[in-house]
């Protein structure tokens, strides 16, 4: 049984922890609203872009390095979007499990990781994973320009023909209390290796599109944009998930602190009352002895 003074100190220290977690909850809640709006608003764009590219990719006569398929390749690239900071519950653990799952989808391939965010980098280093690139993740709302290097790197690598597929692993935002780790295949467009509801099944018969000015120019412009938009969307989803997860975690922490404080306060009051009773009894006993 801790002493009275100890209890008092403990209540005080839990109180200040609660203040901190509450402040973090407020900050996350504000960031969360912003990130959620951004993620939801751009979802339409990225989904339509994704549909378009899958409609186009069925045409075998279209030539573009990014439309090729390399079934013989022995490598696969996995882009992972995580967080820079902790306090997000099982967010990054879920991500790590999803990476493991994605690495094992196709047998006999070497998985290379392209990470974004400190947490998953630490994980990759700890487990001695094959780390191909480490991109910094900005803590504020991501800009489209900031992902150009990553998009260019993976597209260039894919064009070398050494990669069977390139996928992206991130936490998809579903609701404030629900985020789901997902793996999506970015490249190739025409063949699906990952079981993924996001993959658009080819329409039958395929639509013949006209291209203006000509297929090469349009595809050269279009394909990089689509890869960028998918990566960008993944970052926005991950941001929305991160802030939601942190908000919920901090809310739980605040509530737990409140429970602890009320528990300890009760014990403290009991102890105090006991002490008063004992003292009273002693005083009375002393008085009786004197008479």
């Amino acid at each position, binding site marked *: 049984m801790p002493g009275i003074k100890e209890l008092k100190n403990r209540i005080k220290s839990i109180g200040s922890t609660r203040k901190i977690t509450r402040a973090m909850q407020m900050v996350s809640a504000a960031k969360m609203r912003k990130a959620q709006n951004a993620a939801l608003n751009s979802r339409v764009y990225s989904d339509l872009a994704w549909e*378009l590219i899958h409609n186009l990719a069925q045409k075998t006569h279209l030539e573009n390095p990014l439309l090729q398929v390399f079934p013989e390749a022995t490598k696969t690239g996995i882009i992972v979007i995580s967080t820079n900071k902790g306090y997000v519950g099982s967010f990054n653990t879920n991500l790590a499990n999803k990476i493991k799952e994605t690495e094992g989808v196709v047998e006999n391939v070497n998985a290379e990781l392209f990470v974004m965010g400190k947490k998953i980098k630490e994980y990759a280093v700890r487990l001695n994973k094959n780390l191909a690139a480490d991109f910094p993740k900005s803590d504020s709302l991501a800009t489209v320009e900031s992902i150009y290097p990553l998009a260019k790197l993976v597209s260039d690598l894919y064009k070398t023909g050494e990669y069977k597929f390139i996928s992206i692993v991130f936490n998809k935002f579903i609701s404030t209390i629900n985020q789901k780790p997902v793996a999506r295949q970015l490249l190739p467009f025409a063949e699906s290796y990952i079981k993924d509801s996001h993959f658009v099944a080819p329409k039958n018969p395929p639509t013949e599109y006209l291209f203006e*000015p000509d297929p090469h120019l349009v595809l050269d412009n*279009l394909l990089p944009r689509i890869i960028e938009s998918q990566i960008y969307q993944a970052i926005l989803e991950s941001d929305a998930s991160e802030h939601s997860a942190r908000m919920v975690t901090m809310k739980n922490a605040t509530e737990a602190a409140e429970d602890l404080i009320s528990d300890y306060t009760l014990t403290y009051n009991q102890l105090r009352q006991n002490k008063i009773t004992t003292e009273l009894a002693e005083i009375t006993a002393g008085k009786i002895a004197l008479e």
Partner: protein
Amino acid sequence: MNNISFKLVTPERTVLDQELVSLTCPTTLGQITILPGHASLVATLIPGELHARTGKDDFYIFVSGGFVQVNPNSEVIVLADSAEHHHEIDLKRAEEARARAQKALTEQKLSDEEYAKVAAALERSTGRLNIKRKHSHRKNPLAGEAVFKE
């Protein structure tokens, strides 16, 4: 159902989601007008004015580049980098942006990449200004209906 089902989306928002009778948009090969029943098409857009007609209302929208996609069944989707209705364009800001871009082009030494960026910015702000001036007498066809605001 002899209308085009039209969607104009940018990474930030859905700008317009409407049934149209025709759509005119600026592509690399010049302006094209899409009517219901158009052949399937994918084309690159350049900065300029997109004119959407519902038969009742006219929308004049500035797009700063992107893609137009015509699907079977008269479904048209524009994936724009950014887009603004003419009544949303802030004249003062657009003028300032153009002045900045012009100044940067004439005064500073720019690398090729920067030059392309500034030139594109100039093209965008000029396009924006032209549309704003041309349609400044018009009202927002959907004024009062909060269609574009979330």
